[in-house]
């Protein structure tokens, strides 16, 4: 009987989650309101936080206990950057998908590239967060976010390309 009760509760929870996702899918906010949800990420500061050379330097200068404390603080800061990058990628996926419906094939291609890069960033952000949490438990472990910055840079490029096509009047300085 305990088994049946457990399965019934699991089934109800699964159904509730499916319906919640389905309802939010049907009630998506208009895409125009999404653009403002993008939050800035200071890539340079982020790069500094995850730089293995910085970690090596700190490791050589600090005691083991001090290093663990500092590394954990740096990892927590990196995690907040990764979460913001992940949220930005979700917004960009929606913006890119909206642009995919446009008639211009070049814009649609740029939008497809943006969505592909944003999905890749969201995947890498999820994996990076897992690695960061593991590193929080073992601060002496290796780098936690190897490919994230490169993916974020590529996403910046895709977003700018799409932005240039949609707003040719906006000066883009590269």
């Amino acid at each position, binding site marked *: 009987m305990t088994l049946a009760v457990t399965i019934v509760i699991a089934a109800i929870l699964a159904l509730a989650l499916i319906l919640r996702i389905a309802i939010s899918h049907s009630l998506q906010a208009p895409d125009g309101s999404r653009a403002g949800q993008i939050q*800035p990420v200071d890539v340079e500061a982020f790069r500094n936080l995850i730089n293995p050379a910085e970690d090596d330097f700190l490791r050589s200068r600090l005691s083991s206990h001090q290093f663990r404390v500092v590394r954990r603080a740096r990892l927590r800061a990196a995690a907040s950057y990764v979460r913001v990058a992940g949220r930005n990628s979700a917004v960009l996926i929606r913006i890119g998908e909206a642009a995919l419906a446009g008639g211009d094939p070049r814009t649609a291609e740029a939008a497809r590239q943006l969505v592909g890069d944003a999905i890749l960033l969201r995947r890498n952000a999820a994996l990076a967060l897992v690695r960061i949490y593991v590193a929080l438990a073992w601060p002496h472990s290796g780098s936690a976010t190897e490919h994230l910055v490169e993916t974020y840079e590529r996403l910046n490029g895709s977003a700018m390309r799409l932005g240039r096509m949609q707003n040719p009047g906006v000066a883009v300085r590269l």
Partner: protein
Amino acid sequence: MLQAHSFLWHYLWLAPHILQLVLAFLLCRRGLHRLFPVFLAYAVVEAIEEFTLYGMDVSPSVSGETFWRTFCVGLVVEGLIKFALIGELALHLLRPWPAVARMGNRLITSSGVVLVLLATLAAAYAPIDNPDNAIISRAHVLQQTLYIVLSGLVLFLFVFAAYFKLSWNNLDFGIALGLGILSCEHLAAWAITASGALPDQRHLLDFVNLATYHICVLIWFYYLLIPQQAVTKSAVALPEHNLEMWNRELERLLQL
């Protein structure tokens, strides 16, 4: 009204499957059978299976043992087609995005393996509630096992798509939603039945199962008949201030 062989019982057993055949016809007429071959096969096979079972149930010459054996065979076939249907939905969802397709395929395979193990464990601990007719109990446990895996896989698809903000095609979404509601409700109902609880109220669970199936077929109809959701045609501009900010960040990166 809520008794076996009442008018409502006959209606709920037959009507959804007649509707499923109409659905299959409409799929073919609209040329969607090329895009959804497994769903088409599911609609047809499920209807044939249920008409056969209905005929056997109302025919006095068919023994209970024969009915339940046919039921189990039908369940295995139906289960295989439903797994293939989930594969079809996953393919449609992941194919446009190679960035997550490989990871998605790996995760769905791993989830399937874990769910099969959990379902096997649950089956091993399920009681044989009817020792005189063990085949009936086994059929109930088989249903429970099937729906543990199915509901888990459908839930995985929904969570994966929601996390990566992957957009569903209208009909894919409708099929997945119907399959999700169906699997979760059937899982709860068959878990109660397989546990041997409520022996005098099982016909009520049958009604809940039949009514849920009817609702799911109507959901599939709705998503087949409504036109593809119009995605906004006006391209959404990326906010200028963000582009400026991103450019600044990129400039700084280039200077490193």
